[in-house]
């Protein structure tokens, strides 16, 4: 079947849907492979045309190659999904918008209430979130690094969510009835925090898929 293809046709079928990086790498190696086969075959007495046909035929069916290549290299759609994970697209934008609101209310709370009453864990998370966002947004940082950072980020967020939840439950038990004239944004902060926590948690449902993609992206 494959002997009806020229090298260019073979390469086009064999690299369909793969990322440009994978296409460049495959093209380079397969072309070199075919050139070497051509050299050997023409030295052995075959004509240039016959040797070229044989060299392409020896590569096998390009569809079979593509099937295997899709398991090894990232496809365009997988690459897009990975970029969505690492960059603030769709759900990521919502995530950062919620963090933005969260920041405002935490600062309002900080403004109206004194430091000792302010939950230190919430403040830690605030610092952590603000410090980490530039890393996630920057395209200058490699996708590998952002990927690793994102995994760590989600993990720390989840742990902090649990800690803050527990801390607030304890605090609520101690100060079950509290009369305060100053505005307290605790409920807003708490709700936003829960939503952010749920988003972090949702990430773990997709983690096996992304892990597979991340492994492929290492090539």
């Amino acid at each position, binding site marked *: 079947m494959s002997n009806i293809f020229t090298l260019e046709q073979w390469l086009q079928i064999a690299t369909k849907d793969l990322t440009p990086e994978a296409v460049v790498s495959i093209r380079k190696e397969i072309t070199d492979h075919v050139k070497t086969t051509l050299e050997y075959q023409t030295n052995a007495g075959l004509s240039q045309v016959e040797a070229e046909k044989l060299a392409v035929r020896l590569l*096998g069916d390009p569809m079979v190659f593509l099937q*295997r290549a899709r398991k090894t*290299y990232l496809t365009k759609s997988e690459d897009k999904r990975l970029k969505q994970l690492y960059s603030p697209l769709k759900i990521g934008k919502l995530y950062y918008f919620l963090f933005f609101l969260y920041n405002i209310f935490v600062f309002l709370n900080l403004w109206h209430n004194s430091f000792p009453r302010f939950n230190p864990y919430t403040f830690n998370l605030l610092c952590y979130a603000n410090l980490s966002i530039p890393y996630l947004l920057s395209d200058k940082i490699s996708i590998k690094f952002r990927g690793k950072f994102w995994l760590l980020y989600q993990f720390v967020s989840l742990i902090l969510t649990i800690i803050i939840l527990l801390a607030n439950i304890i605090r609520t038990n101690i100060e079950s009835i509290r009369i305060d004239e100053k505005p307290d944004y605790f409920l807003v902060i708490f709700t936003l925090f829960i939503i952010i926590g749920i988003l972090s948690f949702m990430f773990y449902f997709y983690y096996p898929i992304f892990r597979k993609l991340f492994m492929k992206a290492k090539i």
Partner: protein
Amino acid sequence: MYKFVMNLKGSLPALILQTLSFGSSHGYEIASRIKRQSEGVLDFKEGTLYPALHTLERDGLVSSHEEIENGRTRRYYKLTEKGTKMLVKERAEWTRYSNAIGGILKGAS
């Protein structure tokens, strides 16, 4: 009459590792060596070698570097320490497997 077809796909990574245990090599040479050493029995499609090689590289079993040869850039692969350990394991596994099959086919209990 049935014709049994040997499935090379699963064994290809081990064959690549074994070929690279003789020294660094490029794709064409690896394919030729496998065919030559098996006396043509293991005749596989050469294109499939590259996804297998790149998977081995991703898993850290082989490493690669580019060399310029006759004005052409060529990628050479070599076995890593992890790859050498894996090859030892694969050899032992294959010996166990082939002994078991051999035992059955010879009719031994």
